[in-house]
């Protein structure tokens, strides 16, 4: 079968060849067809290999399709078609003719067959071409598909990356939590160059870079600090171990020392010297709260050093103190547990003790430590002046109460002057002990609506805090023995001085031999003086002639007030004296009122608010103090009263009243528009002369 096919094909080819030749004749214009002719000639030779021919033809045609212009082929096709049509027409014409030229028809038929062959050939070529095109387009399609796929992949990848980026951007790093060294300090301390600092100042370094640098710096710093910390810990440990070692050694030394002491005792006894006693304090001293302990130790030491005449002792029950300490420690320890563990109990408790709750916290706030320190000053006449120092545990405050056993003082003013409640007031300026110097206390007391009752607990003088080592000006102060040591001498001296001046003041107030004293000066005084009496603040502030002093602030509620009357013939001078707590640093202040007979047997009441003479007398005694060097403190008040009496008599004698004839040497009675009196005492060779100031 294939053999027949090949044969037919060969015949076809040969036919085709011949037709082509023919064609050239017919169509002289078809140059390209001539080109087709050259190769098949060789192929035809090998008739044996029919299959080869077939494939070769197929290959050849494929090649042809590649090499040939498609448009040319289509031209050929159209031309051929035209020729075909022409031939058919011609044949038709010929056939219709009656005389049919057989040769001509045969020729035309051949030509038609040729043309048909060409058409066939073209058809084949076309088929091949279309197949090729299809193949190519398929190929392209595949390509496009693959490209599309790739694109899809890339897009996905892009999305993913985008996501990742946003994730990265949103990532919350823990670096923001770290406290960094402030920027300015960082600039100063970190080892970055000046150039970088310049950049930084000009904003050239991005925030991120800067942040990284700071973080790095922070890390470095922390690492070094960690190292330091480790070192310190290590050294602490070594020191602790050293201490342990040392204490162990000391412990071992102790029995040895005891042995030595015991061994030495017989020897010392035989030498007659007292066995050496260490300076030991009774056990109870060690139970004292710290401030009182300091007070005890310091006063004891001071006593030892200065051989002062006072004793220091503790007061209170030792057992109670132990219990108090124990309780306190327990409370400290269990405080936190209590609150968590026992809410039930608390509730019940609350109901029960509701009535008590009001006063309990108050009491609690003002509660004293069971132990106190007693300082006893031994004065003349077996008089004891006892100061007791308490420690208010919750207020962290020292208070003082005074008890004293004065003997031989009967007058009302001596009670006032030595009154335990006020004798230590204003020992130092402004220190009146009326309210706590501890700032915190105010709010504590306010909170509990408690008033600081000095009668109950004593007075919280500032000096008392000082000698116990408390200083509230230093925040978080703990009792400091240095403060105590620095103040103790000063305070004890001040207290001694205060007692001395008060006692001297009392003797001066007692003194009634004024006349004798001033006869010596050549001035005869005939005034009669009443004894001193105390005066209450309420009385004082209601007196017309005392009010200006209060308004001007020269006399205050804290001052001790006394009153006496001086009679000179028919005139009566009421003298009100205010002695400051810090006498004799500030002088006593006098307020005066003169009662004087008038001509119509009435009495005119004159004082500094309605009479210039009395005002000037007051001024004379209050303002112009004689500056006597080394003036004896025990004479100060007596001298002052003496001067007052002299000036009073001089005033009366220069008043121009018939009741008061001149007894003193006065040059001129009254001078100047103020009609002032000659109060100034001038010593003259012939005696005392009174002059105007």
């Amino acid at each position: 079968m294939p053999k027949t096919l090949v044969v037919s094909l060969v015949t076809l080819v040969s036919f085709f060849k011949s037709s082509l030749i023919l064609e050239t004749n017919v169509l002289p214009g078809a140059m390209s067809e001539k080109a087709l002719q050259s190769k098949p000639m060789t192929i035809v030779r090998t008739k044996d290999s029919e299959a080869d021919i077939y494939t070769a033809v197929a290959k050849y045609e494929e090649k042809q399709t590649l090499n040939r212009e498609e448009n040319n082929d289509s031209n050929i096709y159209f031309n051929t078609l035209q020729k075909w049509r022409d031939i058919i027409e011609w044949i038709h014409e010929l056939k219709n003719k009656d005389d049919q030229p057989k040769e001509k028809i045969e020729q035309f038929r051949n030509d038609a067959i040729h043309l048909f062959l060409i058409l066939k050939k073209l058809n084949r070529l076309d088929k091949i071409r279309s197949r090729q095109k299809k193949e190519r387009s398929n190929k392209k399609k595949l390509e496009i598909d693959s490209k599309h796929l790739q694109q899809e992949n890339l897009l996905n990848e892009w999305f993913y990356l985008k996501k990742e980026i946003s994730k990265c951007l949103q990532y919350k790093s823990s670096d923001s939590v770290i406290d960094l060294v402030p920027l300015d300090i960082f600039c100063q301390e970190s080892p970055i160059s000046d150039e970088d600092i310049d950049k930084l100042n000009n904003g050239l370094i991005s925030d991120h870079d800067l942040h990284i640098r700071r973080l790095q710096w922070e890390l470095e710093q922390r690492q070094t600090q960690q190292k330091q910390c480790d070192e310190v810990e290590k050294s602490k440990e070594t020191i602790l171990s050293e201490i342990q070692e040392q204490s162990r050694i000391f412990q071992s030394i102790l029995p040895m020392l005891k042995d030595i002491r015991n061994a030495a005792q017989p020897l010392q006894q035989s030498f007659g010297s007292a066995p050496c006693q260490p300076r030991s304090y009774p056990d109870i001293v060690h139970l004292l709260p710290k401030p009182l302990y300091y007070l005890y130790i310091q006063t004891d030491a001071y006593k030892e050093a200065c051989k002062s005449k006072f004793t220091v002792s503790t007061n209170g029950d030792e057992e109670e103190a132990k219990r108090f300490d124990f309780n306190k420690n327990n409370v400290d320890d269990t405080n936190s547990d209590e609150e968590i563990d026992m809410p039930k109990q608390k509730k019940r408790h609350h109901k029960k003790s509701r009535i008590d709750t009001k006063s309990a916290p108050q009491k609690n706030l003002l509660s004293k430590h069971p132990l106190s320190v007693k300082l006893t000053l031994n004065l003349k006449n077996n008089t004891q002046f006892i100061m007791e120092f308490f420690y208010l545990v919750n207020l962290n405050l020292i208070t003082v109460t005074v008890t004293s056993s004065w003997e031989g003082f009967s007058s009302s003013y001596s009670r006032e002057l030595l009154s335990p409640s006020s004798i230590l007031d204003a020992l130092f300026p402004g220190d009146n002990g009326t309210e706590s110097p501890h700032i915190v206390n105010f709010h504590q007391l306010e909170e509990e609506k408690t008033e600081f009752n000095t009668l109950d607990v004593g007075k919280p003088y500032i000096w008392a805090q000082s000698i116990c080592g408390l200083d509230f000006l230093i925040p978080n102060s703990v009792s400091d023995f240095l403060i105590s040591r620095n103040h103790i001498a000063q305070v004890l001296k001040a207290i001694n001085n205060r007692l001395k001046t008060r006692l001297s003041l009392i003797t001066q107030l007692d003194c009634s031999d004024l006349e004798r004293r001033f006869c010596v000066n050549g001035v005869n005084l005939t005034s009669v003086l009443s004894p001193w009496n105390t005066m209450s603040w309420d009385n004082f502030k209601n007196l017309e002639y005392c009010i200006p002093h209060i308004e001007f602030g020269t006399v205050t509620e804290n001052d001790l007030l006394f009153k006496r009357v001086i009679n000179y013939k028919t005139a009566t001078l009421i003298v009100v004296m205010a002695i400051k707590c810090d006498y004799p640093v500030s002088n006593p202040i006098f307020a005066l009122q003169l009662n004087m007979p008038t001509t119509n047997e009435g009495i005119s009441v004159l004082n500094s608010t309605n009479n210039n003479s009395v005002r000037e007398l007051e001024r004379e005694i209050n303002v112009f103090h004689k500056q006597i060097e080394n003036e004896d403190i025990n004479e100060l008040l007596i001298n002052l009263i003496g001067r007052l009496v002299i000036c009073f008599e001089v005033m009366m004698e220069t008043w121009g009243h018939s009741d008061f004839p001149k007894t003193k040497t006065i040059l001129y009675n009254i001078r100047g528009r103020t009609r002032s009196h000659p109060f100034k005492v001038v010593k003259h060779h012939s005696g005392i002369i009174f002059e105007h100031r």
Partner: protein
Amino acid sequence: MDDKYYMTILSQTFSPCGNYLITGNNYGILTVYNLKNELHSGIDDNDENVSAGQSYRFEMIQKMQINSMESNEHFLIIGGVGVIVGVDWDTVINNNFSENRKIGPLKISWNISIPPPKDSMLSIDVNCLVINKEDNILYAGCGDNAVYAINIEYGEVIHKFEEHRDFIHSIDKLDETLASASEDGSVIFWDIRSKKYTLKLIPSNNSAIKRPDLGNWIGSVTITKDWMLCGGGSKLSLWNRSMAAPMTVYNSVEDSGIHVTKLMDETLYAGGCSKYFYQLSFTDEILCKIKTSPVSVYTCINQENPFKVTCLAGSSHKIDVCTKLNYKMTTLGI
């Protein structure tokens, strides 16, 4: 004790411009107040600029008590003890001085000493000064019972009016007449031209005027063309000059000694050792009384220009300032 409590201001005067009040006290301290600012601050406390004008102080030579002051265009004239001194206004009035500056000494331009009489230890107070601005003659009532007439251009005493038997409290001058009031209880009228006294009145001779408990002294005298107003230990009394007889005796005034009298615009002013400073009519009738800060008022001065003001001072460190004489406007020197 603070001696301010017992300060006594014996004299005051205004600066020629009228903006400053100068006071002198018994401690010899001269204080200058910027009145304009003080009054202004009383009206409007919010003005911050006021603080610029504060008071400032000077110290008199030897811390001598300042008894009296008078002023003319060039000088502040101060009567001290035994001396009258002149101080150039330019050295006293200065805006640049601040309140807290150190008390500076006064720069004395000239001084006239009043020597004590022979065989006497008395130092003479210059209790009152009146200047006649036309011929620059200064009249000074002094502690040696005499009134001096001094030409301050030459610095010499022209005349010494001597008749009183005790120190002079107060003098007043009108035209050619000089009136002087003395501790001895008399008021004497002098003729300046003839340098003789023309009239001598002793108010305490009148039993209605005499107050035996307070004494006979006359603390102040004021004269007008027709009237003479005086008072002291004796009651405040208005006298008719031509008749030399008391016209009104003021019983309505509660005082224990008159130290200041004034007569202006048909109104009488009187003050002294009393709670009040009085305005009175010619017929024993109180028109108005102001409660005063000092116990005794020793000095009262007033001016109309550049602003109307009256200042009262005395035995206190406080000075009462009134712009209308009906009420106390403000108090200085606190």
